[in-house]
């Protein structure tokens, strides 16, 4: 292999995620993502681990006092989050690309942080926020084709949205007073 762009051999056809609709590139990785979001929502709101996760996140000291093993919960959460991130890579390879490439993720990890913030850290909100962010990316691509606008505009918009979102969250919690 290897023609300047390093690329692995193609994965076996049986391992490929099937398309949802024939003729479109939309594959079952999307279904997997929705399913994961629902699972995480259930874990977060309906399980002991979810309760412990939220308790540790809100107040570590209070969680320790309540007998929650803080470090263990942090490690469990990190394992879960690492697994989910790996699923994202898996669905890109098995659903879209069909082989492993070096440019598999153009900063998806950082975009994930933005999506999480835009969703106000709600697993179900992540579905909506991710579709919004994806819309901006796809829109920027067609804008760059049609109107010659550099695609980096999409990232500028996302960064601005992220910063304004955290600002807006803060402003809804506090009242501005002059002293």
């Amino acid at each position: 292999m290897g023609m300047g762009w390093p690329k692995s051999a193609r994965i076996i056809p049986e391992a490929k995620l099937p398309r949802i609709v024939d003729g479109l590139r939309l594959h079952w990785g999307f279904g997997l993502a929705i399913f994961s979001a629902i699972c995480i929502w259930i874990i977060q709101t309906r399980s002991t681990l979810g309760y412990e996760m939220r308790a540790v996140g809100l107040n570590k000291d209070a969680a320790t006092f309540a007998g929650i093993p803080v470090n263990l919960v942090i490690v469990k959460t990190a394992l879960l989050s690492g697994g989910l991130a790996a699923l994202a890579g898996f669905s890109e390879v098995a659903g879209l690309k069909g082989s492993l490439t070096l440019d598999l993720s153009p900063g998806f990890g950082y975009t994930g942080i933005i999506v999480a913030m835009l969703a106000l850290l709600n697993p179900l909100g992540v579905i909506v926020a991710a579709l919004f962010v994806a819309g901006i990316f796809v829109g920027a691509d067609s804008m760059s084709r049609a109107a010659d606008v550099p695609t980096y505009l999409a990232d500028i918009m996302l960064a601005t949205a992220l910063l304004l979102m955290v600002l807006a969250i803060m402003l809804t919690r506090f009242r501005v007073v002059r002293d």
Partner: protein
Amino acid sequence: MEIIDILFTASFWAAAIRIASPLIFATLGELICERAGVLNLGIEGIMVAGAFAGWMAVYSGTGLWTGVCVAMLVGMLFGLLHSTLTVPFGLSQHVVGLGVTLLATSSTYYAYRLALPEVTSPPKIEAFQPYEIPILSDIPLLGPALFSQTPLTYLAFVLVAVVSVVLYRTPLGLAVRAAGENPAAVAAQGLSVTAIRMGAVMVGSGLMAVGGAFLTMSAFDSFFFEMVNGRGWICIALVVFGSWRPGKALLGAVLFAAFDALQIRVQQTSLGTHIPYQIFLMMPYILSIFALILMSRRAEVPAALMVPFNKGER
């Protein structure tokens, strides 16, 4: 052993110092921010912005030092944005930092595409040339390595001393350190924690931008996408490695750079023909993780790092 031979060549150490220079600037910048209690994850993007701003200024016809100043100003602007959101508004420093990185990186790339729409390979500028310090550069091994560098490298080393003196020997440095350790005490002295923290973040961001500008104006002579390539994140680790002290941070930067310079050279020895080159690329990072684990046990984290301060709150 070929590796031992490499360690005794002047070109190896010259390369190490050259690779260390942008890291020194940016690490000092991050260190100032964190000493005042603000974690600035905008570092990566601010370095990209500085790299472009300095290079663009020189490309449009200003002098090299003016370019450095332009880079610094652009860095300070992003520092102003970061500190406005994190200090008076007290927003999450992680999220704002990553937001600033994304904003600075993407607006830099956007500006680059707008300014030079038709180019395939970026134009070159007259970059800083090495300046051999008389007498000192004649010392064997040490001379060519330390004293035949570009002026920006000398500036980096001078700045380490300046930052140390200001931090530990002046009232201003005391105020900055206190803002990172016990902001309530600073407020009790009648000083403004907000002003100190915002000032520190702006100065620190300016230094980060100069670190970026070193890449386009001294190490290379043009601007490429992805040229900062994670150096900002390394600097965050270097601050921890240096236990929030400028001198130790300098040591860490040179150590990391030496490993980086070493791995390129080891790739070309007989070892390199047997082992995939990616293993060597990993080496500086693996070694810095180990160094971090060893060093961070004794690290003295600023007590109020990442803790927003609201005047009058108890």
